[in-house]
């Protein structure tokens, strides 16, 4: 991720335009010439050429301008590759009208700068609401190509002097972060077919009251579909009740993310040689994770995301070992969870694993007990033997266990995982995500049939 670069120069620092520079140069030459030939008239012309740009420089430097800028993004979170509208409300706070200024929004390199434009004349501060003649609304569309958190802004206000000799740029307001989430491919299927059970709570209830209709109705919560309303129970209770039997109480799923890329190519990461292919693979993996995760959350799962490296989704001191080494995975729940997940993934980057306590802790999955089996999806880029062993060790707690590999996983690791019972599906581009998911569902269908 590129870091937002800040100018070391003070924001108000004025510059001469090309015209101003030519004025100064010509004026200086003429001045010397006039001194040598002793021509008072030329001397005056030279002095005008010298003095006016300098006065203009002072003018743009001291010219007061106080602005208030409010920046909003529409939508506030945007997926990579789709457009977002940046909306700036600029209000003149100074007691003088602002005229002839130019504006542009400073952006870092990840998004294309929108170019520069004229700021309409703003009357002096009126103190009223922000839609008076002292304010203007500026809008432009950006098309971020890469996921990440991009700083947009601050607004750069450029002002010329009246003769176009000097120019100063001044930063107004603060940069705002635009969260660009990974692209999501919507996956086929509802996700129900993935699990063998309905979730632990539901099973428990069913065990205790196998035939109760009463207990499977619950009160209405916002977000419940109308078709789920249990009209008999509603009539009985006097408030809207919802059938519960179709909803899993809290079905869970596990998403294992390879963020360390700790395979034999690790050296290239350590030395900071950014391999373009790795980068693309990582982006593909993040996109895959976002698609699968969003799909699972949409299907009603509580999603546990386990990162192989230190947790970036929910960083913490006790979460630096990697999920397979004993850290708690990060959990996301259906309402709002998809957004949290996408925001987290927007910032995800490959990190170096802390080698100190490899394989010391027990996996969370293993410590969870064998009460039920989790659907597990691993997204692997480049794993080492320890990762593979960890994955193999949790296989027993997972059903189904699907490993999406992005093509850079070593063949022996792949074979090891297949032998351990992981279903390995190789995805090499984002176009194959849908096909890969269909493959998973077909495999599950087969499994269901055989059970």
């Amino acid at each position, binding site marked *: 991720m590129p870091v937002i670069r800040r100018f070391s120069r003070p924001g108000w620092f004025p510059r001469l335009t090309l015209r101003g520079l030519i004025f100064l140069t010509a004026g200086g030459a003429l001045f010397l010439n006039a001194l040598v030939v002793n021509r008072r*008239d030329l001397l005056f012309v030279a002095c005008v050429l010298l003095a006016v740009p300098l006065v203009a420089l002072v003018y743009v430097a001291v010219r007061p301008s106080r602005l208030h800028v409010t920046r909003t993004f529409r939508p506030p979170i945007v997926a990579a590759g789709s457009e977002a509208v940046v909306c700036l409300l600029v209000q003149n706070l100074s007691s003088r009208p602002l005229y002839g200024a130019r504006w542009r929004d400073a952006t870092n390199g990840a998004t294309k700068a929108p170019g520069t434009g004229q700021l309409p004349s703003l009357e002096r501060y009126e103190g009223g609401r922000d839609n008076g003649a002292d304010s203007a609304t500026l809008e432009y569309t950006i098309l971020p190509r890469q996921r990440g958190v991009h700083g947009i802004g601050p607004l750069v206000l450029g002002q010329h002097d009246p003769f176009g000799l000097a120019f100063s740029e001044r930063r107004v307001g603060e940069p705002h972060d635009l969260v660009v989430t990974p692209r999501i491919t919507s996956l086929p299927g509802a996700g129900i077919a993935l699990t063998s059970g309905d979730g632990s709570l539901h099973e428990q209830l069913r065990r205790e009251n196998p035939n109760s209709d009463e207990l499977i109705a619950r009160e209405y919560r916002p977000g419940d579909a109308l078709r789920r309303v249990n009209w008999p129970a509603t009539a009985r209770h006097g408030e809207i009740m919802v059938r519960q039997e179709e909803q899993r109480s809290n079905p869970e799923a596990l998403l294992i993310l390879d963020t360390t890329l700790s395979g034999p190519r690790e050296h290239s990461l350590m030395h900071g040689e950014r391999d373009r292919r790795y980068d693309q693979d990582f982006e593909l993996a993040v996109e895959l994770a976002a698609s699968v995760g969003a799909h699972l959350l949409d299907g009603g799962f509580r999603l546990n995301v386990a990162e192989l490296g230190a947790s970036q989704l929910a960083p913490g001191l006790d979460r630096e070992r990697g999920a397979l080494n004993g850290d708690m995975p990060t959990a996301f729940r259906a309402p709002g969870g998809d957004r949290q997940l996408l925001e987290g993934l927007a910032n995800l980057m490959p990190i170096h694993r802390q080698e100190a306590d490899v394989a010391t802790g027990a996996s969370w999955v293993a410590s969870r007990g064998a009460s039920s089996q989790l659907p597990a999806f691993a997204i692997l880029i480049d794993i080492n033997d320890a990762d593979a062993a960890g994955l193999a060790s949790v296989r027993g707690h997972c059903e189904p266990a699907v490993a999406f590999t992005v093509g850079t996983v070593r063949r022996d690791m792949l074979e090891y995982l297949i032998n351990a019972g992981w279903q390995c599906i190789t995805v090499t581009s984002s176009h194959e995500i849908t096909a890969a998911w269909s493959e998973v569902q077909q495999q599950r269908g087969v499994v269901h049939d055989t059970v």
Partner: protein
Amino acid sequence: MTRFEPARSVPGPRHQAYWPLTWALLLLLVVGSGALAPLLRGTGWMWAMTFTVTIVLISTAGFRRLGVRRSFVPITGLGVLLTFLTLVFGAGTGLVWLIPTPDTFTVFQGLIDSGIDSIRQQSTPAAPVAGITFLLASGVGLIAVLVDALAITLRWPALAGIPVLIPVGVPGLIIDGGAEIFSLVLAAGAFLVLLWFDARVRRTEEANQLPEGRSAPRVFARATRLGPGPMGGAVAVGSIGIVSALVLSAATPAFTEHSPVGSGNGSLLFGSGVSPMIDLGQDLRRPRPQPALHYTTTAVAQPYFKLLTLDRFVGTTWVASTNRINRDNTVQDITRSPELSKSVESVETTTSVVIDGVDTAWLPVPPLVTRVEGLGGSWYWDSHTRAIRSFDSSTLGQSYQVTALELKPTAGQLRDSSSEYPQSVLPAMDLPTLRPDIIDDTARAVTSGTGTPYDAAVALQDYLRGGEFAYDTDAPVDDGYDGGGVDVIGTFLELQRGYCVHFASAMAVMARSLGIPARVAVGYLPGTKTSDGVAGAGAGQFNINSNDLHSWPELYFGGVGWVSFEPTPGRGRVPAYARPADSAGPGSASGATLPTSAPRAGDDGLTTGGGSVNSAAGSTSGSDALLRVGALAALIVCLMGGPAAARSLRRQGRMRRLRRGSAGAATAWAELGDSAIDHAVRVTELETPRELARRLSGLPGLDGDAAAAEALDRLLVALERHRYARPEEAVAADQGADLADDLDIVTEALHRASDRAARVRALTLPASLWPAVLARQNSGRIRNA
């Protein structure tokens, strides 16, 4: 919700936007051609130029409006210019008066030739004859086409200033000082107006051609301000720029005393004009004399330096005849005048001359030169007038030794000279037949009762030197009788005001009318002795400057030759042989001339007039330099004292408001904060007043000062009460004076407490000013006041 309207206006026609540029160019060119005013008489030429510029610029703008392609517009502008010139100057030779024919170009050629000729011959201010007007109009028309192409077709309006420098700069090449500063300022202002209009046109253009498409920025604002932006900024920047340029150019000391090119000394002298006499007057009227030459001599009396002799009338005007210069007459050996009889006493003198500024083809030498050495180039002497002239080189930079005869005829010898003149001298008695009667009448009246030509000559000289005539270099110009022609002499004898040209010419003409051969010599007075001639190189050196230009009559006496007289009052030196005291002896001279000329008889050597003028000029140039240095110093002091003055004004204002009661504790505290900042105490807006007060009272110099601590405490309490008390318990208004006193105590204590450097900085560069000037990021004031 108020309705937002898009800021972009309906895109108007593109060419519409260029009209302001056309008007600005028109203004610039008219103002620029106005800079030629010192060179030309009247205002007719100005109207011609303005009219041409207007026609050309309006028509190019019109063609642009009609949709002519941009690259063709300059060509159409040229066409319009040609048509206009054909109409106005073509004298009807054009087809339908408008379309130029070959005849038209012949007419134009004639106009150009006559214009160039009259530029060569006329001196400034010149009369704008048709040729000059044609040159001016066509020149400014071409400039207009060029400027239009630069500023509007190519959109480089800043470069359009370069062609305008031509009319603005030309006066500097011809006259001293160049164009008047007023017209320069006007031209600079017009140029800035052009730049301003251009910046506005660019904005309008950009606003009308917003990029379209999805990624283009969209701007929504209430379109309230439709007209041009506020003028304040442009006026402020422009006027400050021009005024500082004025100050700067006035305060810049000159490197060289006079310019090596352009209006150097002597470039006017016979350089261009046909009438040396008028040019001579021009040089005499120069406000600042410029050095012409300097010399050392062995002669007892410093010689006059003669450049040329005017010995012939063409029409009514004196001219120098140059046709008798023989290529065999080299300057190494100049034969002694054959008419000079051995009885006349003569002394051989040697004079070393170094030319400083004279630039002419005539060599300034003492009269009766016999040999010149050390000259560069080929120089020849005129066998009649003994003037020395070159056809291939100039006097500029020459340095040479002249051997000459100093003639000392006595009055008796002159009186006894025969009136039988040799054949070669006879043309020197010609006079134009049509001459004012006053010349002959005056000559006869003045010389009545004189017996010999010599006595008549002395009588004429005394008449002219007498009290009736006044030396005045300006009157002939003002009254329109400048020059030395016979008609001018008539006027001069009536008005009795004039300068050496008139006196010399009058005496020569009157002598001729009496039958005495006479001619007019033009040259230099002997000049002044170097003032700083203490010892060494400068000792015994004489300097001649342009104010020493002179002309005098020479009369012919048989057996002696050409003898100079000095009829100009207050200038030069009357030769010993022409003194009235001598001539009065034989009793034939008129007694009436004696009393008037007696006071002048004593001034042997140089008259005081020239000398005092020179010394006055020297002192003015000295005081000029002093003035310039003073202005520069004043500027520096102003610049350095500016911050201090601004700070002091702010402080005074606050104190006044405090004492008047119109401001309260907040103002007092703000002033305290500013003083603290001035004295290098860091004040942040994050501090509460109490924290600041605690830090202040803990400063090294303040902790022992009980009075200051109490005053500070009172200020703090007042501020806190002002801020936090209920409105009904607000502090009484008359508290302000007490606050001001307390403030004074604390500020003085602060001042005492800081070290010397901080004190000086607090006075000269108060730090509290900078936030007001520079820190305008929305952080607001530094102080928490």
